């Protein structure tokens, strides 16, 4: 992977000047590369990882993992059904997986009832959906490679040979 992407994947707020210093390229070269990545869709979005448990007066968000079994369609396989499903704004992630079921969704709602309603009224009745299993998430420990607990600073000696 290009070093620029590697650096941005770790910290999307790294200034282009710093990226230039770290990669040995000019600021202009870095800017051009990033613009190109944004244009061709390699960089999809810049987001912040938030630990919602620590947000004061948080808006309650309930998340559920939903396993979905579907009937694949001629010529388009799973893509057609997947698109029908992931187009719902409640669906924040959608994966095609191997194993006992086909699609794995992460669905968000304001409370258990809204998620249950989504499953009952939108997802399950869909023509090609054969069955669903819903797991409500109770606690998030790690998100997208990031441990959400604040880690203790490791103590190194300030000076050593």
């Amino acid at each position: 992977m290009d070093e620029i992407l590697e650096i941005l994947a770790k910290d999307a707020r790294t200034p282009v000047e710093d990226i230039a210093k770290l990669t040995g390229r000019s600021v202009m070269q870095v800017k051009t590369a990033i613009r190109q990545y944004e244009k061709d869709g390699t960089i999809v979005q810049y987001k912040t990882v938030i630990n919602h448990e620590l947000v004061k007066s948080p808006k309650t968000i309930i998340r559920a993992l939903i396993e979905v079994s579907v009937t694949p369609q001629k010529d388009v396989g799973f893509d057609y059904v997947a698109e029908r499903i992931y187009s719902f704004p409640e669906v924040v992630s959608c994966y095609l997986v191997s194993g006992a079921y086909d699609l794995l969704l992460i669905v968000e709602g304001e409370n258990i009832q809204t998620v249950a309603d989504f499953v009952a009224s939108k997802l399950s009745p869909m023509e090609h959906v054969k069955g669903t299993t819903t797991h409500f998430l109770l606690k998030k420990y790690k998100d997208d490679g990031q441990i959400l607990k604040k880690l203790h600073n490791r103590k190194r000696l300030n000076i050593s040979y």
Partner: protein
Amino acid sequence: MRIAKKVEEMAPSGIRAFFDLVLGMQDVISLGVGEPDFVTPWHIREKAIYCLEKGYTSYTSNKGMPELRRTIANYLHKRHGISYDPEEEILITVGVSEAMDLAARATIEPGDRILVPEPWYVMYGPIIDLAGGKPVFLTTKLEHGFKITPRQLDEAVRKYKPTGLVLNYPSNPTGASYTKAELQELCQAIERHDLVVYSDEIYDELTYDFEHTPLPTFKGMRKRVIYLNGVSKSFAMTGFRLGWACGPAKVIGAMTKIHQYTMLCAPIVSQMATMEALKSGFKDVLDMKREYMRRRRFMVDALNAMGLVCHNPEGAFYVFPSIQSIRQPSLEFAKDLLKKKRVAVVPGVAFGESAEGFVRMSYASSFENLKEAIVRIKSYLGT
């Protein structure tokens, strides 16, 4: 109680006082650290925890667990094509420091002269002294990338009639390392002068611009090289204190004799964790190496831009810039920089007299810290 004269004369007191000063200070950005800023990869730590849970708390064979010695032999063979017999030619030690101490004590007769390229990592001089030998320091220069040349070796041999040579590449403190072609030439001189070589290659996996070539891989070297390595730097396992020595069976046997009375064996948990590191830790090494390379580029460029001439180190995680333009002894510079800007660096003089006029800065620190340190050093220099 009386202290042996040899020991009393050992410590460079000025540096010790500087170290104590740093240890008592708050809010210091330290570029003085000689260990990775990464914590040991989790799968290795998890293995260590598992071993404790399963009750691995006993002594092991003096030489180290047979499985670990076999793992090291396999690793060396696969990675570099060197073959060492795990039964007789590999000894597990408590870090490379112990391995170097054993190697010196097992091979040096009173008065033997041992060549040590300068700047040198702080242990070589005292260890050779304690073993009864006499270290002879060979000055290396910034303009030669801090490397010794075959000609320099020839001259030193004519002048001092040494029995051995210490090689440390990539080097602590300069980061200098040797290409295969440079080593080839050195090996011819080493063979010509029938030298024993103590080859400390602890930073081997942190070589950036070319492939590291271990000394025993060269023709004629295996019988005269004591190859020292460990997991401290490559796998960020400094606190595990685990190293090894490989060499001819006779030398390893002699080193084992001393080791069995002084250390008995390396800690079993560290030995088990090392097996895990060598079997499946190389992705971690590559990830860390990529990060160090970026930081090296940043440091070398930033220091040169502010007028502190800094060569591009080929390995390890140190830069060794010249502070000669400041016209201040390195210890004074380090003290003043610490006092006024709270940035800790190691004065060059800690690594030998001819290293005066330089300081060692470690880039085993977060990029944020390095950036802030550079800002502070710039402000100190008024540039």
